[in-house]
């Protein structure tokens, strides 16, 4: 399954409270993703919480975008990526 980096912008900042509501929001995302055959691996958030970089597994950029639509999440761009680590030559 191809892996994608999904860039998102949140002009007002991303707010996921560390509460039951926040947990439900995340689970909701996971549930929707399954319908489109995509998997949210993990994300990085900038200090000001205005941008996120999310790693997704999915069949195509379009599937990743459809899942985002279903979740009401913005998408700037979807880039195909591969893992590269400092010790890849060993």
């Amino acid at each position, binding site marked *: 399954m191809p892996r994608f980096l999904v860039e998102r912008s949140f*002009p007002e900042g991303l707010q996921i409270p560390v509460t039951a509501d926040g947990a439900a929001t995340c689970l909701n995302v996971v549930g929707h993703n399954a319908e489109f055959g995509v998997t949210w691996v993990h994300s990085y958030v900038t200090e000001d919480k205005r941008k996120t970089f999310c790693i997704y597994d999915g069949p195509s950029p379009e599937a990743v975008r459809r899942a985002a639509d279903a979740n009401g999440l913005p998408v700037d761009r*979807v880039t195909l990526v591969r893992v590269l680590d400092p010790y890849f030559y060993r």
Partner: protein
Amino acid sequence: MELFERDDVETHLRALLPGAGRGGALALVGGEAGVGKTAFVRHVARRLEGRAELLWGDCDPLGVPQPLAPVLDFAPRLLGASANELAVDGSRRDLLFRALLDRLSDGPVRLVVIEDVHWADDATLDVLRFLGRRMAQTRALLVCTYREDALGPEHPVRVLLGHLAGMPSVHRLELAPLSPDAVRAMCVGTDLDPVELHRRSGGNPFYVTEVIAAAGGAAGGEGAPGRNTHAVPATVRDAVLARAAGLEAEARAVLEAAAVLGARAEPWLVEALLGDAETGIDRCLASGMLEYAGDALTFRHELARDAIDQAMSPEHRRRLHAAVLRALETYPDRRIDVARMAHHADNAHDGAAVLVYAPEAGRQAARLGAHREAARQYARALRFGAGLEEAERAALLEAFAQARRVLGHTREVLEAQEEAARLWHEVGDVRAEGAALARLAGIYVHRGRNDDAERASRRSLELLRSLPPSRELGHAQVVQAALRMRARDNEAAVAWGRRALGTAERFADVELAVRAHCRIAAGLLLLEDAAGEEHLERARRLAQDAGLVRVIALPDVTAASISGEYHRFEEARRMLLAGIATCREHDLDSDADYLQAWLALTDLHLGAWRASAEVAGEIVRRTDAEAISRILALVALGRLRARRGDSGAREVLDEALALAERTHTLQRLGPVRTARAEEAWLAGDLQRCNAEAASLYPQAIEHRHPWFAGELGYWLRRAGSDVDLPEWTAAPFRLEADGAYEEAAAAWHARSCPYEEARALARSGSERALKRALTLFEDLGAHPAAAAAARALRQLGARAIPRGPRPSTRAHPAGLTPREDQVLQLLARGLTNRGVAAALHISPKTAGHHVSSILAKLDVHGRTEAVSEAHRRGLLGDARDRENGEPT
């Protein structure tokens, strides 16, 4: 016989029987060979006795099946004698389909069983496709069984399953092998080791019962129980042969004769082969190896027939087939089934008989639209055709090519048609040679060999014009018109179309007239001459009045693709939706694909990117779409990914180019090269952008194609080349190339192309225009262009640069996307998922995704609750101004 572990499937199947307020359904019952499909459906049919009228049809494992045989097993009971008449007159096959549908839609509740559809001929599969899509409106449950393990990825039934996937009235049921417990229960009273039997048989019920029978157990048969535990045979075939070995010679002879006779062995034929066979038949029936189905003997399972058949010596087998053939020929009062005769003749290696029956069977299959079977019958005749005269051989080759090309223009089609043309030339039949060359030209076009097509077409015209006018000349003229149209030599296309029309009228050939009208229309419309519309209208009326299903979508395909190519996208969209509806009505799947691909491209330009992605993605994912549809879907996807800044644009456009290059035509290369130039430009590779555009620009100029030349010239200019766009090129591109950015933007706006509008605005340099461009780009989700516009604004020192994610999404009070909002409004009007899918032109599955997303966002559990919640929050009705689903 008792059925093990089938209760759940039975409950499921019985629940599908139409009843109060519930329409009909199609149930596809799959499972491996020997899993007990027949036993299961017979059991269910018995249980439903009195509640439903039972109709039954069987598909035979004949090498090349008799077209429509399973349908004709039961159709006469629904339609009376007219069923056979309709089936023989293949030209009005659609009438048979409709009549079946009508009859199943009223009267008593019916259970229609068609067994073993993995052996079905193409015409039968067409019936299933047609009925399958419409079962909801009937009062019948149609049950089809098939062997899951017989379906390779390219198997026609696999394709059929794909076509029916997602329809709410289509259900797939699977029969699983038996569990160890069930096998243990069946072994009670035998000395078999149930664990070993389950392991070897994999729980296959037929295998298990054969072994039990051979061991003298519960399933019938009478071998003496041994003192030691019976060994379990290694394969199902061994199990069958072990059981047969327990019978006397007379009974084994009956088994062999029955195996050669096929799925149904008539007792009179068995006797014709063996003389008095009463004892043998009785022994086979008593042992349970054969049984009566109606008035014919059948094996308990095809696996058993196959095992016996394969175990015979080839010579013994051949002699039996020859004897069957003689027997069938000496009883002329019995209905002669030519496909069956051809089968026995082939297996008897009787070339003379094959040459009598196979071509006849081929013609019959072709009439019924069973193209695969027709091609195989002709191929069979050709295998025995070494001694034929040239003219006979040529006719067979052409018949083969015509039947086979319906399934794809493969190399063997081309070679057969080439050989036919050569043979006609040798025997000096000028008319036949001319006609063959015209067909050959058509095949060359599909193979992408346009130069050869031109040569063949010109030669065919030369030959046929040397003779008095003929229908064949008309076909040659319309082929030439199509060639001119594809090359966008529009005046010539019109002229040839008119000649073809003259010939068509002279010979009252309606189908030829429809094709001619469409070619004339295409030429005129490409010349932007509105008179083309009248020809389209004439073509539509003629095709409809004569019920010419094959060409019924041709006018829509012609008109919509030209509107798209000429960037009249709103008009194109209307025609595409109408055309797609026509294709759906008549099950014209490949035409529907082509129109869908155009719709994806049209939606892309109209700014409906999500709809475009959905449709294009669906076609690209499929492997059975034709190249011309695939090219356009790939182009739509490539442009979309490039404009969004997503990965994968280059890859899909590479594939599109590879497919389009085989055609050498502007019609296919134009969309691909323009898209590739745009992708290169967006990737910042000006050199590649220039090369892409330059590779086709001269051809576009030569053909004076305003849009291809306009866009290619535009990319050449943007990549730094110094070209002047001729004044006949499309205004929006020319205006922008000349630096009239705001005028260009207005021209794009008039054509409802928001991305192109924004692209022109972004170059104007004014803060106001840049801000407008930025908003348009952001609404579309065109990230790279939006980022560039924002940068340009910052450089201008602008303040309050608009930014943020899709404002339209945020604007919705419940956080619904525009598409979800649209779906919600349709739910409020009482539409089902299926209705929503049809209205929005998306798959029912996608509609389902939207619905579940709406439920989640509104935090409700059902559609009714969703509607009342939406009403409570005032979410209904206000979406009117967001009608198109995508922000513009």
